[in-house]
């Protein structure tokens, strides 16, 4: 009798706790808010960056100059994971597994989730090369996370021996036309 009472009470208790724990998950509304976003990039001049919101996070669209593109191979040896082989929160789209980390239609346009892989701060742009505060004197241009000092190259790849373990995420995206891209999906059928 005692065992049965305890067991029955226990089951009810665990079930109630389970319900309370579940209420902590993202609500249906929060889940639904992750739709793809369309972006017009005609106003992004070479060397300039545009920030759009996707799933509540900043997505950077950077049109790199030829000089900037040249740095990507120069910094290769100083990067923690130059080929983006590690596991990422968002799997790296196969069409972005190249040093430019961009689709081949526009290899100079970088599309990346502007969130540091360490603890989720949004790094600041330090696009210009050369000595500047808090950065090494041979800085090739890239991004600096203000929270814990991780540095990234102009492809959003993390430099060695920094708190951030991985490169920044590349979202699935595709070009709808020459100057229009959609972030969050890479096939016509729907969301990635």
């Amino acid at each position: 009798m005692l065992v049965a009472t305890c067991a029955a009470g226990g089951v009810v208790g665990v079930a109630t706790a389970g319900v309370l724990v579940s209420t902590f998950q993202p609500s249906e509304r929060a889940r639904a808010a992750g739709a793809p976003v369309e972006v017009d990039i005609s106003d992004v001049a070479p060397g300039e960056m545009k920030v759009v919101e996707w799933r509540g996070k900043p997505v950077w669209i950077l049109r790199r100059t030829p000089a900037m593109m040249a740095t990507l191979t120069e910094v290769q040896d100083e990067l923690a994971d130059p080929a983006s082989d590690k596991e990422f929160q968002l799997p790296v789209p196969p069409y972005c597994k190249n040093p430019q980390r961009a689709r081949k239609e526009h290899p100079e346009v970088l599309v990346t989730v502007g969130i540091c892989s360490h603890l989720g701060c949004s790094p600041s742009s330090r696009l210009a090369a050369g000595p500047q505060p808090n950065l090494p004197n041979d800085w090739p241009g890239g991004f600096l996370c203000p929270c814990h000092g991780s540095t990234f190259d102009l492809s959003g790849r993390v430099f060695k021996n920094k708190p951030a373990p991985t490169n920044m995420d590349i979202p699935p995206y595709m070009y709808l036309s020459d100057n229009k891209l959609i972030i969050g999906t890479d096939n016509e059928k729907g969301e990635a």
Partner: protein
Amino acid sequence: MGAFEETQLPSTASRPEKALAWVDDRFPLSKMWKEQWGSYYAPKNFNVWYLFGSLSMLVLVLQIVTGIFLTMHYKPDAALAFGSVEYIMREVPWGWLVRYMHSTGASAFFIVVYLHMTRALMYGSYRKPRELIWLFGFAIFLCLMAEAFFGYLLPWGQMSYWGAQVIVNLFGAIPVIGGDLSEWIRGDYVVSDATLNRFFAFHVIALPLVLLGLVAAHLIALHEVGSNNPDGIEVKDNMGPDGNPIDAVPSHPYYTTKDLFGVSVFLLLFSAVVFFAPEMGGYFLEYNNFLPADSMKTPAHIAPTWYFTPFYSVLRATTADFMYVVMAAVALYVVFVWLKSRLAYRIKVAIAVLGIVLIVGMLPQVLDAKFWGVVLFGSSVMILAFMPWLDHSPARSLRYRPSWHSYLYVVFGLVFVTLGYLGTQLPTAAYTIISQVCTLAYFSFFLLMPWWSTMGTFKPLPTRLTFTPH
């Protein structure tokens, strides 16, 4: 238990006396007062360090009362929160005062509690039989840190937002379940309205309830075993004819008056800060928090509030290169335990196995520095809980320990303050190295304590308290 009997007072007894007798027959009011304070005998040589226990009670009450009045105007909604705080500051009559009392109170709470803990470290107040007092106190400290963290999100400023983002993502460093866990804590893919709402619930009801329970447990445990004192000897070893320790005085009126004097001085300083420097140069209220939260842009310099920065520095010091130093330190420590400790063979084997597992886990191919940064960050707080079992010194109080023990405590204090200072600054190469050295020193202080605390020439313990009547 005998049958109920109404206390019979002579008819000349006053009305309040009769009322008290009526209550005492039904509820142990006078008994509780006597046990917990009125006839609670405390050592007679308490110095200024013994004010911080009662002061932290005062700040707790202050925080609860001002907090209640703030919730009457605050809106826990991402779209309204920032505006409602500004509304409290500018439009609610005296709202600015209540809010500044609450925000200054948070920092005051940590100042008082850190001093209270320093006292415990100096006089060995955590030693047997006071281990549980220390553990309840440690739990209060954890609870307080959680309160401060949840509360800091509520104004929904830039620092609130990005601070919460960083701390919640700490859980994301746990292998396998981390990502889902931090999503579960946030209730969304980013810090959002859902996060604000639940942090509000934790801040105003869940944690205060736990905190009050822990404070009660802390005090009950203290009044059960009795207070320690600056000499670190037991007053109960010298009992007087009245059954109370010779060297102790009842808390009331002796410590009531002393604490009230402490309260006056504290409130003087507290009011000065509330009225003249509520932001304290950006340490109590950070300037970036006067900007509304923006999920697209992290402020150029983010740092937690000052009371978290020592531990935060440990997190930041853990870089990939530093992991090799940590691996070497773990290996050395295991060798040291084998050579120098008198632990049972089985425990030594267990420590060696644990050490090897840790070292393998620290290889960059296994778990990255980010995970270990979070582990070291957590350990730097948790290690305090082990004080009662790390300290093997024959004397509780630093007064009767070799002088170099005191210097070691001063060095430890400096290390802690340095870590705290570095945590407020932007990381540079030099600062990172200093914080790494300090991190090693911080952990060595605790982990080597079982050995160094027994070393040196101890001074003879007195049989009676050192006390000079004023």
